[in-house]
């Protein structure tokens, strides 16, 4: 992974990697996200917490390009960018892992890691022959580098445990790292048991160390405080506060989630 990523090579390397300014999005009469500002620094893990319907997922989908904002601006490295489709965000180095993981249970681990980006030989594009051995070799190397314990890259993903599936989804998201700068994760540990979620947490910590900024939605407050650098609290579509994960407590966090309070600490 490319450390000190400065993809556009512009001079504004002091600017945060990603900035959202005044983002609004309504669904009918429901203000899902209202006037939200976010800053994401390089190599940072930013947790996003809040009740159901607080706007966390919508905010993330706006960054991923699958939901478009009604108003507001998005900047990367201080430069305004246009994100209207998932392809746009991917081109900017943003990968999102959805709650359902979007894995192919009928395909094996290597096929899932490389899906849509398979190396081929011979004929061009879709009629090219898959380089199966290379995909298995590279997928195995990737899993090993990320310390992911899966017996074989030839196992169909459908037979894996929830934690292993989550890790395959993470491996896929970071596999083509040269381009990746931001990883968005929606509830990575929602469906996992304690041991599994600890393993996944460990993996997330590891990939951040490689120069990747991560935004994580989670309901498990202690876990987020342990993992994230800063935690952003949302309520009813608004940005309530951003807390330093080291100096805050679970109680303070929960109070803000339940009660809500004006964002006195300034923008995230």
């Amino acid at each position, binding site marked *: 992974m490319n450390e000190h990523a400065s993809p556009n090579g512009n001079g504004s390397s002091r600017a945060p990697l990603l900035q959202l300014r005044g983002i609004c999005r309504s669904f009918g009469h429901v203000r899902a996200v209202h006037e939200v500002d976010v800053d994401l620094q390089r190599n940072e893990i930013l947790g996003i917490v809040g009740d159901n319907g607080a706007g966390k997922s919508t905010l993330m989908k706006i960054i991923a390009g699958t939901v478009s904002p009604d108003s507001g601006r998005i900047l990367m490295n201080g430069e305004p960018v246009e994100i209207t489709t998932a*392809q746009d965000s991917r081109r900017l180095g943003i990968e999102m892992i959805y709650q359902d993981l979007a894995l*192919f249970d*009928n*395909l094996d681990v290597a096929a899932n890691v490389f899906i849509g980006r398979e190396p081929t030989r011979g004929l061009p594009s879709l009629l090219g*022959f898959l380089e199966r051995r290379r995909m298995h070799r590279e997928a195995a190397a990737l899993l090993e580098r990320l310390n992911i314990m899966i*017996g074989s890259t030839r196992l*169909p993903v459908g*037979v894996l*445990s929830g934690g292993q599936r989550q890790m395959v989804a993470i491996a896929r998201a970071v596999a083509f790292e040269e381009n990746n700068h931001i990883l968005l994760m929606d509830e990575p540990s929602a469906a996992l048991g304690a*041991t599994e979620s600890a393993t996944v947490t460990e993996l997330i910590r590891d990939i951040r160390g490689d120069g990747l900024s991560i935004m994580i939605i989670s309901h498990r407050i202690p876990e987020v405080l342990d993992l994230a650098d800063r935690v952003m609290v949302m309520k009813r579509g608004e940005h309530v506060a951003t807390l330093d994960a080291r100096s805050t407590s679970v109680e303070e966090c929960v109070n803000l989630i339940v009660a809500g309070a004006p964002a006195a600490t300034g923008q995230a």
Partner: protein
Amino acid sequence: MTATATPPGAPLDSRAQAAARARRLLLGQHVLLLIALILLGTYFTSRLDFFLTSQNVLTILRFSAVTFIVATGFTLVLIGGGLDLSIGSGMAVVGVTAGKLFEAGVPLVLAFVLGVVVGVAIGFVNGFIVTRFRINPLIATLAMLFVLLGVAFIITDGRSTQLRDDGFRFARENVGGVPVPVFFLIAVAVLSVVLLHTTKAGRHLFAVGGNPDAARQAAMNVDRFRLGMYTVAGLYTGIAGVLLASDLGAIAPNSARNWELYVATAVFLGGASLTGGRGSVVGTFIGVVFVSALDNGLVQMAVRPQIVLIVVGAAMILAVAFDQRPKGGFR
């Protein structure tokens, strides 16, 4: 597929073991089907002196070849998350088109090529209806079953006519002792295995059928894949249709009646699934040989054709029940 989730952190089996387990999962149904085929063959051989003669085996193979070709198209469509009930009627339209053209003096090869072109067009129309109008493939191709049957009857005025041979019945010939349709079987099998199991397009077809939403997120054009797979299936319907017409040597609008039953039973026995993303050319081949042998043996035991239909239908139910079995087996 059975879930054998590995607990996290637990010592994981060695790579070789895991690979073997994956292979078992994929081949499990084929092995069972092969055993069933051997048992079936043994039973028929014990009851019928004629069953295991080279003459009869060639007959089974000849029948299998045509069934296999259209069943392979059916398999592709299932893998991509679709369904095609119109295959029998499609074959009928193709067959009567080729027959009528030949009767009208069109050269043999051209008549057959045009028949195949009609098959491709039928497949394209199926795919177009399913993707453009967002109609459930069950409804769309069920409607097409009747539309095409109607077309076949209009073309022939509802009459079956026997054709003078003049080379039309080449599907009955043998080359080097091998029935001509078997060469088509080999060509279709090789093309399909290569397309499905070695190319990026084949891999993506499995993806599109296995999880269409995730396929879209991975920037695949799901509709274009489905249009393509129906068109390739149409090509196979076309080839099977002209081979069947050639085998019968007749213009017969009801020639492919009940083929949906035989083809679907064979394909489901071969491990493909209605839920999409699963199936293989090899599995379909074994399934087709099984159904052909079943049909052949029952007919020779003088079982009434109506009973044969019931037996094949029951085999389809068993195949799908096996596929849908709850984890841990039936209670």
